[in-house]
């Protein structure tokens, strides 16, 4: 009888459970909160550029004038790279049209054989600083062509100046300046046809007259002077100015200078293993035979430090 009673009591306890009226010692702690992953501060907060300003992915290299038969083309070469700058189109000008930005571009604006200014587009370059987008330079991308008349049948009428263009003008890819009925024919004698731009070979050397170098090994903390140089058809031509446009410049005092002044620096830090500092220079050459031109040169700098072997 006692066994049956005990079994019934046990079954009742098992079948009718109820919550224990006890104090929950953790009830005041609230819901467990999963730790929020700590986020690193944004090293470069995104600042949206103003309308019209865009990030540069095609960088100006040089003005190029090429002749193919009677056609002389004025173009601009670019390289697909980003130097961290921004740009905005200022003005698109036609052949012979004047612009309020004439004379402001660092690379100038060429003239056709008849003296009229070439067509193209002015761009203004910006750098993003703490204070926002700061304009640094204006560049002119020429885009024009002309046909030299091989036989001088009639003397060309004086060039007709067109009114200044508006910034919203359309861009042209090829403008034959000779064929418009209402415009004067741009005739140039074959001898006046601009010759093709001569190839400028840039160079970087440690001495004013030493061999150009593509790579350089330097000891950490050792000061070096790098001379930007330029060569046309194997002859050295004077460099007007230079500027470092990319790369780790180390402890350089200045990253731009005149052609006679070398780039002086030294590196405090070593590059990562099996890596080098790629330093890119933009060299300006302005001689009668080349005109104002810009060429880029790069040097791979490997910084080493004396170390004990095991």
């Amino acid at each position, binding site marked *: 009888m006692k066994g049956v009673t005990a079994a019934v009591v046990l079954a009742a306890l098992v079948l009718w459970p109820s919550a224990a009226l006890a104090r929950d010692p953790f009830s005041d702690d609230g819901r467990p909160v999963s730790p929020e992953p700590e986020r690193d501060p944004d090293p470069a907060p995104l600042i949206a550029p103003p309308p019209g300003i865009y990030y540069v992915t095609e960088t100006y290299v040089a003005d190029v004038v090429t002749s193919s038969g009677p056609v002389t083309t004025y173009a601009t070469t670019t390289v697909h790279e980003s130097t961290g700058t921004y740009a905005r189109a200022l003005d698109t000008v036609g052949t012979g049209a004047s612009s309020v930005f004439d004379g402001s571009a660092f690379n100038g604006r060429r003239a056709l054989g008849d003296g009229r200014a070439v067509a193209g587009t002015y761009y203004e370059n910006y750098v993003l600083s703490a204070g926002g987008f700061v304009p640094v330079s204006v560049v002119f991308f020429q885009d024009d062509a002309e046909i030299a008349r091989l036989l001088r049948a009639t003397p060309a009428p004086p060039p007709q100046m067109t009114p200044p263009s508006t910034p919203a003008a359309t861009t042209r890819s090829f403008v034959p300046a000779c064929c418009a009925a209402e415009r004067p024919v741009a005739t140039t004698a074959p001898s006046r046809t601009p010759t093709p731009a001569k190839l400028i070979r840039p160079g970087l050397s440690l001495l004013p007259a030493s061999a150009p170098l593509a*790579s350089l090994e330097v000891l950490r903390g050792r000061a070096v002077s790098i001379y930007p140089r330029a060569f046309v058809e194997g002859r050295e031509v004077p460099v007007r100015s230079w500027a470092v446009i990319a790369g780790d410049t180390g402890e350089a005092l200045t990253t731009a200078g005149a052609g006679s002044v070398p780039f002086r620096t030294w590196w405090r830090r070593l590059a990562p293993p099996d890596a080098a500092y790629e330093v890119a220079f933009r060299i300006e050459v302005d001689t009668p035979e080349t005109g104002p031109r810009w060429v880029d040169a790069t040097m791979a700098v490997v910084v080493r430090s*004396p170390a*004990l072997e095991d």
Partner: protein
Amino acid sequence: MVLTLVIAPLLLVALAGVLQLGALRVAVARVRAAADLATLVAVNDQDDAELSRSGSLRLSADAAEVAREYFARELELSSSLLDGGADAIAAAADVFAYPSAPAYDTRTGARYERPTVRIAAQVPVRTPVFGALVLRPVTTIEVLSVSSPR
């Protein structure tokens, strides 16, 4: 009393030996530091003309002499520990500079991937307590230091 008289000399001998061992370890550390510093200084002695010509690091022609000179200078600071003149020890050291790489060390068989300066020297150090204990009064330390720009 008798036990003290018996044990005391043994304790003194053991203590002296321990002190001499400590002094020897200090001497070894200073000699190695002298060799290391000398090779590091020598590696800094670069051929500027070659650097201008090729852009590559190459040891100067007098790198070995520079290493030997600085080895002597550094040993001179520990002259009280040495059994001989610092200049003589440095002059007898096997100092070799490998101006360009790769190069093979005929003494050690090592291959150097960079211009390297190597010092291999035998430095005699005074150990008077060991001498009093029927051991050698002069202990020779063999030191090898290799440095290159990396």
